């Protein structure tokens, strides 16, 4: 599998480490009334789709950046690769 790094171009997947569902970016608000329930879901509940899935990958043997990779879990096709920090900032995280 080849991951097309947004800064460095196509790199072999062996350079990367899978770090889980990209939903981990959406950390709940700890001050919310229902924080306990939200953190339970955040910590333990994951979808397991047969198809397109947004994932976090860490370029461990490269520039050490975190990526959001949109990957088809059935075919291993990759349709989109973005820097995780750009995705997080677009969602209003990290200001």
């Amino acid at each position, binding site marked *: 599998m080849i991951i097309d790094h947004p*800064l460095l171009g196509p790199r072999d997947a062996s*350079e990367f480490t899978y770090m889980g569902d990209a939903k981990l970016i959406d950390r709940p608000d700890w001050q919310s009334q229902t924080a306990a329930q939200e953190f339970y879901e955040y910590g333990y509940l994951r979808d397991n789709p047969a198809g397109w899935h947004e994932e976090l990958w860490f370029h461990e043997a490269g*520039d050490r950046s975190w990526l959001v990779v949109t990957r088809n879990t059935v075919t291993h096709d990759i349709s989109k690769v973005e820097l995780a920090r750009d995705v997080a900032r677009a969602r209003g995280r990290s200001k």
Partner: protein
Amino acid sequence: MHDLQPVTALGGADPHIDTFDHITITGNNGLALASVAARMGHEKACHTALKKLLGTVPAPGKAVLHDPEAGFWMGPDQWMIGAPRETHELLADALKNKFGDAASVTEQSGAWVCFDVIGPAMPDLCERLCAVPIRRMVAGDAQRTMIHQLGCFVIRRDNPEHIRILGPRASAGSLHHALITAAHSVG
């Protein structure tokens, strides 16, 4: 006062030199290193300071082989700056004065071992060592990769037969072993 003698990464007072038919591997003891990471919201100021220092901001995957300070891109908004140790032993302090609040500067001289690999067999050796596309790389390309399970930087220098490898200093012996093994196999 202590009277301490500096030793190289592989031990001893002088850098190790291994000579083969088509390749020479030289420990480079003369580098001062410091990393620069732009602080959030100060990226522009950091770029301006880098430009002043190196002439240009190293782009992703690139090094700027400038004198006396040189630098290469390590990751988003992160760079490594190197200079001759003789004249720039306090490189991190000097850089901190230049970058101020625009960047976090970390001393790196004691963290890395540097090997210069020079000779006509350099591309063959590099292909046995790691996954960087050495024959497509041009002078000034710098890539991080795995060599012998160690995260290393490979920098292609002006001389087409020369690459510089920076690896973790604490594993200098392992990296040196990997280099020597590869050099034997390119014969």
